[in-house]
């Protein structure tokens, strides 16, 4: 139920931000639409903690800050290597252990890896992630577990 409420709130925000027309008719239609979407979403069984990760809310902004910093750094490296000659890269494929328990956590971790240029999470099996990296050192920095630790912290 709380997920539904949360979805309702986010949907309403979405509508209000997008609409730009706040006449009575449009608002009413918006309400009807949101209700309809809620009905469909419930029927489709997509309203749960996976789609509405309200339990993560507390720490997520801090994590985002950190992630953005990482992304910027990684971007600079990759761009550098793009403009350097092709010999400078050292593509690597590696399995990395992860410590997250929930699916949500795993997904956040995997997506974070992918978001950071230079590394891509290829597969996610149980508690291992196969990572492909443009540079060997990227994998090594992943293996140090900084990101892993931060994501695991999110879960709590």
């Amino acid at each position, binding site marked *: 139920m709380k997920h539904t409420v949360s979805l309702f709130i986010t949907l309403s925000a979405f509508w209000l*931000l997008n609409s730009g027309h706040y006449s009575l008719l449009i608002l009413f239609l918006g309400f009807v639409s949101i209700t309809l979407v809620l009905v469909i979403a419930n029927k489709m069984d997509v309203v749960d903690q996976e789609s509405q990760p309200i339990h993560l809310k507390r720490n997520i902004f801090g994590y985002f800050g950190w992630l953005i910093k990482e992304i910027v750094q990684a971007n600079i490296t*990759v761009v550098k290597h793009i403009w350097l000659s*092709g010999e400078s890269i050292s*593509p690597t494929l590696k399995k990395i252990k992860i410590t997250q328990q929930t699916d949500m956590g795993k997904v956040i971790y995997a997506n974070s890896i*992918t978001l950071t*240029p230079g590394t*891509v999470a290829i597969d996610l099996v149980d508690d291992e992630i196969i990572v492909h990296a*443009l540079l060997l050192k990227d994998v090594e920095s992943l293996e140090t577990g900084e990101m892993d630790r931060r994501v695991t912290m999110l879960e709590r």
Partner: protein
Amino acid sequence: MDIIITISSGFFLLVGSFLCFSGGIGLLRFPDFYTRMHAAGVTDTLGAGMILIGLMIISTDLLVFSKLVLVLLLTLLIGPTTSHVLAKAAYHNGLMPKTLNNHEKNNAKETSSSNP
């Protein structure tokens, strides 16, 4: 104030477009699929983000601003997801990356996959 807005947005836009352009070059220059994907990732994240932020700065309307935010969120959500799915599909269908250190492993995998 106007000057600041113009300059800052110009800065973001320029950096963003440079990043995108670099990504495009990388897409052409990198040797195999997986490495190219990294190049594409550049454009998806920081490139797109920079440009959108640049636009946000010059937007005068709340509506436009909020929509730009939405676009940004979507890009950040969808970009890595597609990359990941793509990589996974490629990997599972046997497309092996060219890597420095796993030539032997690569060969072993190929032989094993050729006679299941």
